């Protein structure tokens, strides 16, 4: 048994928001449950109410189109991974989703859940940062958009408040070609949390490159955009590495030492850039 709590499965987002707002810090949103249920088991969280949002109609969207791409907050990662159009448009997003945990867990875990858990190592964070994705957040006060770039406020902390329900994650419209990629360094090939992860989005027509790095600071870090016009791949790589080193502050933990993270980050970034800039996957 994972503790004593009440369980509610509201029929609408409004109802979910109300339940969550009423219960405040005593409630938790149950979506995929792959982080929450582990926390319940080890006692690190003990909410009195779980609000199951998994079946809410509004959270099931999954579409790509000329205007935007939408991933409902309750869509399991495997469904995201298996979505062909999404992969065509955002290969890095599909790869990031695929890198998470195991096939079984990806049938439960969601993109929104991975973000809201706010682990510094969250695999969905770097790619959604470089895509400048936004969360649609509904609360008793109404609906608002929250940029992923504004979401993380600390280790396991977000700007979301009790009563907030993430409805979906939206990627801005594709304006010309966009090449995206995700890379993750782990201890073993089997399922693992990221020692370091990173994502890149490169828009050749606008000569813009965006890069984000995870697991190297209290929150995932989005680097300032890079202007690639007239820059050689080598010079660009050097610039990205410099910026990444300056913007991150890895720590020692059981997964890796700060030194290893610092040592492996340049290789990871170089490979990531090769993925998007040369459009040819490196090793």
């Amino acid at each position, binding site marked *: *048994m994972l503790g004593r709590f009440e369980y509610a499965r509201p029929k609408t987002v409004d109802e979910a928001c109300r339940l969550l707002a009423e219960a405040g810090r005593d409630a938790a949103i149950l979506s995929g449950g792959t982080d929450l249920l582990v926390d319940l088991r080890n006692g690190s969280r003990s909410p009195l109410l779980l609000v199951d949002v998994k079946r809410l109609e509004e959270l099931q969207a999954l579409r790509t189109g000329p205007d935007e791409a939408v991933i409902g907050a309750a869509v399991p990662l495997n469904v995201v991974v298996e979505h062909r159009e999404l992969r065509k448009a955002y290969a890095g997003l599909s790869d990031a989703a695929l890198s998470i945990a195991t096939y079984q867990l990806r049938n439960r875990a969601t993109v929104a859940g991975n973000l809201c858990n706010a682990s510094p190592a969250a695999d969905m964070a770097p790619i959604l940062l470089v895509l400048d994705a936004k969360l649609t957040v509904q609360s008793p006060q109404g609906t608002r958009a929250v940029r992923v770039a504004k979401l993380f406020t600390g280790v396991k902390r977000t700007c979301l408040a009790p009563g907030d329900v993430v409805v979906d994650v939206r990627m801005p419209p594709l304006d010309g070609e966009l090449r995206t990629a995700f890379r993750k*360094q782990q*201890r*073993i*090939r*089997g*399922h*693992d*949390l990221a*020692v370091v992860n990173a994502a890149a989005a490169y828009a050749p027509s606008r000569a813009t490159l965006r890069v984000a790095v995870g697991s190297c600071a209290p929150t995932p870090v989005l680097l300032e955009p890079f202007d690639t016009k007239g820059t050689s791949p080598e010079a660009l790589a050097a610039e990205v590495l410099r910026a990444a080193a300056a913007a991150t502050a890895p720590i020692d933990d*059981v*997964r*890796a*030492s700060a*030194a*290893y993270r610092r*040592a*492996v980050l340049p*290789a*990871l970034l170089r490979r990531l850039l090769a993925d998007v800039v040369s459009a040819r996957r*490196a*090793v």
Partner: protein
Amino acid sequence: MTRALVYVGKSVPRDDAVEKVTGSARYTHDLAFPGMLHAALVTSPHASARIVRVDVADAAALPGVRAVLAGANLDVRLGLYMRDKRILARDVVRYQGEPVVAVAADTLDIARDACRRVRVEYEPTAAVFDPRDAMKSGAPLVHPDLGSYAHLEGVFFPRPNTNIAHHQKIRKGDFDAAIASAEVLLEARFDNPPVQHVPMETHASIAQALPDGRVEIWTSSQSPYTVRHLMSVAFGLPHAAIRVHVPYVGGGFGGKAGLNLEPLVYVLSKAAGGRPVKFVATREQEFNTLPSRQGLHSTIKIGATRAGKIVALKATYVWDAGAYADYGVNVGRAAAYSGAGPYAVPNCWIDSFVVYTNKVYGTAYRGFGHLEVLWGIERAIDQTARKLGLDPAEFRRRNLLTLGDATITGETFTAGHGKPVECLDAVAKAIDWGTPSSSPASSTKRRGKGIAMLHKAPAMPTSTSCSAIIKLDEDGAADILVSGVDYGQGTYTVLRQIAAEELRVPIDAVHINSDCDTAFTPYDWQTVASRFSYMGGHAVIEAAADCLRQIRAVAAQIFGVAPEKIVCENASAYPDGEPKRAIPYRLLALGYVYPNGNAIGGPVIGHGRFIAHGLTHLDPDTGQGRPAQFWTYGAHGVELEVDAETGEIEILRIATAVDAGKVLNAGLARGQVIGGVVQGIGSALWEGFRFDKEGRLKNPSFVDYKIPTAKDLPREMVPILLENPQPDGPYGARGVAEHPMISVPSAIGNALYDALGIEFTSLPLSPEHVLARLAEKGVKP
């Protein structure tokens, strides 16, 4: 005349597979009984502390709680070779994770709630975490009472008032003189961290204390009779008062040998008025509370001639026993008598110290210390070869044990030992040794090849024995009863093959009990040390012969010929040369009935037994003697690729040769090799306990203790089983179960040197470790 074998050697599918693929196989985890209580533990947050006060009042008051016990209630010491362990910590705690208080309650949730209400006051005391520090004078004593502990006398030599639980000496020849004469010298140090067995079924036990003083136990164990015996010793109960059932066991690898949770659930059941009590370790407890594999620090010195012959070898092995050494002392002993590798070493000096520290304790783990000592030896052999300018395979060929050589304990190497050099040659050929690796696809990668030898003998008491019973059924089929445990190896299938072969019945007509029950299945010491097929095989052969003797006696009477003129074939008996007159076993199995109703004979029940023979204790001062019933030799060849930018290693191919003597079941033997190799890769590349400064285990879960998954396999695995017969083995067989795991890290380490030119001395060879050494050496990708 020898008959062609019908079943032995064939890939007969395992007999329990259908139960296991349908989910109907019952493990201790799955068992429940009416009125059964569930147990939970309060464990120590400190690595070393005095227990000042234990307050269980709030816990005991919780509705549904039926028993709460602390160490103060239990004045019992437990252990197989060294009685140094408590059921629950008493007065002091010696490692973080040690059980302090146990609760039995109506449900697991209540038991866990109750545990949260237990208040224990500790006074932290000085701890020692590195066994080398623990050997220094003035080190905190983990067991101040060591001098008073009962232990196996004449075999183990604890040093009172130190942390040394056992000191094993091996002395052969004149090391000092020989090393002085050596033309080439090598000295090196190596380290292994403690690791976990990680059986998929964690430890689980159920006990019921019966009103008449008897106790019934169901347990996930490798050792039904050893559990019974040690329970008897611990609680002063007659053996017959203790009944131990072992249903299916979800993996053991040594971690479920000896005595584990059985005493705990027994005392809880007693305290709870005799209701059955079940305890299942959580995965975190499996890592943090239950035993692991000891760490090791090795110092090795090798002296050789310019011609490439080893003249002297000295090794100091310091084992990190953790807080208890009840089993670990024997690891330190066994690994010492194997501690020079499978080489002819004329002058040898080995000190093996099993040393207490304030960490989770060690026990047997597949390979029993040999993976650890051979990590050092086989890396040192490679280094010595390079100093000599010799190919490491060639250097090994010049020094491997051959006919007439003496081992370091003075045993003569004979043809019956098998052929280590054939193992070496087989793996060398399989990895194209001598041919450089092809170029990797990426410029940041490096490739290399490495070879390592392995050897091991069963580590067991000199009088280890086992037995088997075969009963014939009404339909003439045979039932085998044994108390060795098949916790995955497939030995039961092998025993069925042997019985079918010997009894001359179809394999489908041979059955074996999948549950051991000390009330009904006959004695077996315990299922460890790769000796079950060897010893159990002998016992089954003898039991089958006993059945045939009984069948022949009845048939002889029926046919009016001498018993030795009776032929048993096709599940029937007939006079030699007259197969048409055959009487099927089913008409003899319970006794033969003549047409007039007269009956002769009676139920056919055969029994067989086997006892280790010719073994001696090792001389306390020199280690000379005969410790081994048989030796199994083998080798690995590895080709790998390492990413110089990330430190990741990929095994391109690994060839493993083991001299099995005789392969009894090709499919099962292959399964042991592949499974062992992958487990060895786990030890080589990823696995190892990490402790913080206070001695707390930092990675007690699958989140941070990684074992190989299906994504982590080598690109190619090549098992090679040689068949140079063991003269006293069943059909010439010797044990092969542990061996494939041994020396996998060594071969990988040697290949890594070949790839990078860096000597790795400690495990695991994780990406982080590899990259750190590359950085230290200034190697640029």
